């Protein structure tokens, strides 16, 4: 494997068969380490309070596009309790998560680009005063022409939101693999369609919050609801023009992120700047409305796609053209543009592929990465196209996919290296669990089953800023009391990565979970990890932890072997003790093993790190989408459609996910359930709509409807384990992949139930009813 000749790579060595000792925690069910979270003991960022703390509030632009003529803070500063006001001029440095496209200021410098863009910040002695003072900052605007949707951005280049100001283009990607036109022309069937996705938000329960303090030694500490402490550290240093040595970023436990907190935001810079200006701690907490303006939600996309097939179901070629609505700023848009095409070539694909994706700027809240970044929308287009092909060819949609699967240990059309691949088992699992063969087509009018499949990355091989250093690392500290502390740069955002690390380390060292502490998300305490995005945590940080733990284990084994007078190979690690494999009555408790090892080797500890092997193909963009391992998912959804109202009820979803190895099955099932929930939410309810006037249609959780417990389908999670050769103990990702098939499986089930295809999300009752009526009109009267 490429990994072995790359010295930077330290994939954890696969243990030979029979040496699978450990405390047996890997693969065991349990609600590891979440008790404080579910009992309300966890302290979130907004729970933090410091003496003399001030409260910040951003002043936001009420126009979709405007030049800032002048800002007068006199009235605000005159209000009792107000301590300071800053504007763009106080922080005149661009930032952006992608180093090539920094295009945001903490506070707009001369142009505000959407309703809600931040133009000034106030801080005051209490929250109410801060809110009132923000209203008293007088901003004079010159209103500029605006583009508030894709059509506007395409038709009116003169709005000039692009880099050169002559168009609204954010990024263009065009890639082609194989003879698309020839194969399409030679196909027995070609289906063509256009789908519309209006965009959705992450809607985490915890809104963004940041607290900053400058201490008397000149150290700036920023506590933030970020899922990328390391990038925030770098950007704070750049924008505030402070050396990184004077900044510490702490990420307290997070109440939901889903990608919406994976880049720096105005509040972090403003809290820091105001703390520096006033000498007092400053806290910002976004309101629910502001959460919708900070956004970075899933991009609106309009995708035209052609897919061809031969009569036997062999897919021939895919041709896609995608217009992406990026909102006001670049965010991760460069990556989004690639992902909208690059991630489609697994698990079932064609022999030729061409895609052209253009991301446009619009005068809307900026879009970014949301769980399943860039690839959920094209997955909807593609998997519904496959369903149409199956109908046209008279094939079972599951069989159609089976016929075109990319095999394990292969390379995709666009050059992605595939290792473990459990998609065939996923399809088998949902087929049998759902009773597909017996039940499909026999559920009566209004009820139907639909299938879809997908694949997703377990991290990417590409750091956001080019560098040769590890992408992920941990440090292990082993205390002679028997406590092992894992210092990890990963961000625990509720996804369970702390528990994952604890399971891996405890298992390796013969400990129980109560003996392992995880300290994560603190740039002073933990080594660098790039953050909680791209589903990289388990694969990368897990590997880093495994290699550190193995280093410590070898020392424990060596010390115990010496004490018992056997060779290290004869020592077995079990829960609580290290013993002689052939004579388990001879052994020492793990705490004693630690003491022996500390006496023999000196203070115990280890670092572990991970970097991907060199991956990706040799063309421009060929590394984007390249991952050390891919997860695979298949869903079958069962829906019931109310023919009178058009309301779709997703009754049940069977979701099979290949996560390589379920280190903690309970957590994997939780991720599957969360993904299905979020996918069904986007399919049925959630729609982030900005009106023609640039106003959000309802930036609150009454108008922006997330499903309640009464609206959630029954979810049947099915875990498939393909045992990845490079994953930690065989594991791959489980956080984002399981979302992808949700929307197309539901769409395909609606077709099965009532014979209509809804190509615009969400499948709201009004849309479904309109489609049902149109279909009834189109049916010949004879029927």
């Amino acid at each position: 494997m490429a990994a072995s000749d790359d010295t930077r790579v330290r994939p954890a060595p696969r243990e030979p068969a029979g040496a699978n000792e450990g405390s047996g925690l890997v693969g065991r069910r349990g609600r590891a380490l979440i008790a404080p979270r579910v009992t309300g003991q966890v302290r979130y960022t907004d729970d933090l309070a410091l003496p003399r703390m001030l409260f910040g509030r951003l002043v936001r632009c009420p126009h979709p596009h405007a030049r800032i003529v002048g800002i007068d803070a006199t009235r605000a500063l005159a209000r009792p309790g107000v301590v300071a006001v800053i504007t763009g001029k106080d922080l005149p440095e661009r930032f952006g998560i992608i180093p090539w496209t920094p295009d945001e200021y903490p506070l707009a410098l001369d142009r505000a680009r959407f309703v809600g863009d931040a133009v000034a910040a106030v801080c005051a002695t209490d929250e109410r005063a801060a809110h009132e003072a923000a209203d008293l900052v007088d901003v004079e605007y010159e209103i500029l022409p605006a583009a508030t949707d894709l059509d506007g951005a395409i038709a009116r280049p003169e709005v000039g939101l692009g880099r050169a100001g002559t168009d609204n283009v954010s990024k263009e990607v065009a890639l082609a693999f194989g003879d698309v036109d020839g194969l399409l022309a030679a196909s027995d069937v070609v289906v063509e369609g256009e789908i519309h996705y209006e965009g959705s938000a992450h809607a985490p329960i915890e809104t963004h919050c940041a607290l900053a303090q400058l201490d008397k030694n000149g150290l700036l500490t920023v506590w933030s609801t970020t899922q990328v402490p390391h990038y925030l550290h770098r950007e704070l240093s750049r924008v505030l023009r402070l050396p990184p040595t004077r900044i510490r970023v702490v990420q307290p436990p997070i109440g939901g992120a889903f990608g919406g907190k994976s880049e720096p935001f105005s509040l972090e810079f403003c809290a820091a700047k105001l703390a520096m200006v006033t000498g007092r701690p400053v806290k910002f907490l976004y309101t629910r409305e502001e959460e919708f303006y900070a956004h970075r939600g899933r991009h609106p996309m309009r995708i035209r796609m052609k897919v061809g097939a031969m009569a036997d179901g062999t897919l021939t070629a895919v041709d896609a053209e995608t217009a992406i609505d990026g909102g006001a700023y670049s965010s991760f848009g460069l990556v989004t543009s690639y992902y909208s095409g690059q991630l489609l070539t697994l698990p079932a694909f064609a022999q030729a592929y061409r895609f052209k994706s253009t991301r446009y700027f619009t005068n809307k809240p900026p879009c970014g990465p949301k769980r399943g970044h860039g690839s959920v929308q094209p997955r909807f287009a593609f998997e519904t196209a496959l369903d149409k092909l199956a109908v046209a060819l008279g094939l079972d949609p599951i069989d159609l996919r089976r016929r075109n699967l990319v095999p394990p240990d292969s390379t995709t059309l666009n050059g992605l290296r595939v290792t473990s691949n459990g998609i065939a088992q996923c399809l088998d699992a949902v087929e049998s669990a759902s009773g597909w063969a017996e039940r499909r087509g026999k559920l009566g009018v209004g009820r139907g089953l639909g299938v879809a499949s997908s694949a997703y990355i377990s991290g990417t091989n590409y750091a956001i800023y080019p560098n040769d250093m590890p992408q992920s690392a941990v440090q292990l500290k082993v205390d002679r009391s028997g406590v092992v502390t894992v210092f990890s740069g990963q961000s625990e955002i509720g996804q369970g990565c702390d528990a994952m690390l604890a399971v891996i380390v405890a298992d390796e060292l013969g400990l129980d979970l109560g003996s392992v502490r995880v300290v994560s998300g603190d740039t002073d305490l933990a080594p660098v990890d790039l953050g909680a995005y791209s589903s990289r945590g388990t694969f990368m940080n897990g590997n880093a932890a495994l290699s550190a733990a193995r280093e410590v284990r070898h020392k424990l084994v060596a010390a115990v072997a010496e004490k018992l007078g056997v060779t290290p190979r004869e020592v077995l690690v079990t829960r609580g003790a290290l013993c002689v494999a052939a004579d388990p009555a001879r052994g020492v408790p793990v705490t004693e093993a630690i003491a022996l090892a500390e006496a023999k080797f000196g203070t115990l500890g280890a670092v572990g790190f991970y970097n991907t092997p060199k991956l990706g193909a040799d063309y421009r963009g060929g590394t984007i989408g390249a991952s050390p391992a891919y997860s695979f998912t298949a869903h079958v959804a069962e829906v019931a459609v109310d023919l009178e109202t058009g309301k779709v009820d997703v009754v049940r979803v069977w979701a099979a996910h290949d996560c390589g190895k379920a280190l903690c099955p309970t957590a994997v099932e939780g991720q599957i359930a969360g993904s299905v929930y979020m996918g069904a939410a986007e399919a049925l309810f959630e729609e982030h709509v900005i009106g023609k006037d640039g106003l959000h249609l309802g930036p609150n959780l009454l108008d922006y409807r997330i499903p309640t417990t009464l609206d959630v389908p029954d979810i049947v999670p099915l875990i498939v384990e393909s045992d990845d050769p490079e994953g930690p103990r065989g594991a791959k990702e489980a956080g984002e992949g399981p979302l992808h098939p949700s929307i197309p499986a539901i769409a395909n089930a609606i077709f099965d139930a009532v014979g209509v295809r809804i190509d615009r999300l969400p499948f709201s009752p009004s849309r479904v009813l309109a489609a049902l009526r149109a279909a009834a009109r189109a049916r010949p009267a004879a029927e």
Partner: protein
Amino acid sequence: MLPLPVFDYHRPRTLAEAVALLATLGDRARVLAGGTDLLPNMKHGLVEPDHLVSIGRIEELRGLALAPATASAPERLVVGAGVRLGELADSLLARRVAPALAEAAASVGGPHHRAMGTLGGNVCLDTRCRYYNQTHFWRKALGYCLKKDGTACHVVKGGQNCVAAASNDTAPALVALGADLEILGAAGARTVAARDFYTADGLRNTVLAPGEIVVRVALPVAVRRRSAFEKLRRRGAIDFPLLSVAAVVDRDEAGAIARVDVVVSALGARPRRLRAAQDVAPGSDPAVVIASVAAAARRECKPLTNLDEDAEWRRDMVPVVVKRALVRALAQG
């Protein structure tokens, strides 16, 4: 979090005290019951009272019981304005004698809203509109509207009247069930029929005078009265109604239809009593009643763009929801 504006808080223990206090404070004061509507509205800057008079401690506003028939009135279900919606929804008595009301209460918001929200607060709920129930920042960016701070209506362009929607679920049930509202003010007590309580003015859709308190609700019960409530909404909970319909059917001794009343709400500011239902002749065939009232409902009701859902679809749903309510009311033995 959006901060609450500053206000003075009063907590009288008797009705008399509350009414006197409200009379003194005048229009600077508001009655606070469960607060589930008033407090969010204050955070949005929609109402700006200097004083809140909490009626939560007033014993006289509690109670849910049958009042026996008197010489002048039939047997009645009497529900105090301070009764929580959850209590009303769970009350076996209410479910038996006035199912439409209990079902309406059960369909309000989510469990937390029903635990705090009161019947009185629901009866007096402010009208709602997608252009109105937003933050101050949002409304400012829009340019406000004539219900608050502005001069134009965004629903009826050029319109001079506010057509914000009556969104209280119990209102159509109370109107359909022929409830009376007992009201107390500094000027004395009065009784207003629920059907006369609401007006077509979205700015202020009740006849309640400033300083008046709704004390209790009384509705006549009848042995052969059946009722049902249906609500159109996107989610299974939380959502305000996109349409709400209460249907009441009285049977005669032989079991034939004696009288039908159907009220549709979440249209404009006032719940709408369907003429076609009142016109149903005694003895009509149930299937014909359902079909004809549902069809007439579509003609009589015109959902507006005041709520955040496709108005055409809501219009199409009027007969569907009316039918479902009638079917259930007629199905009961």
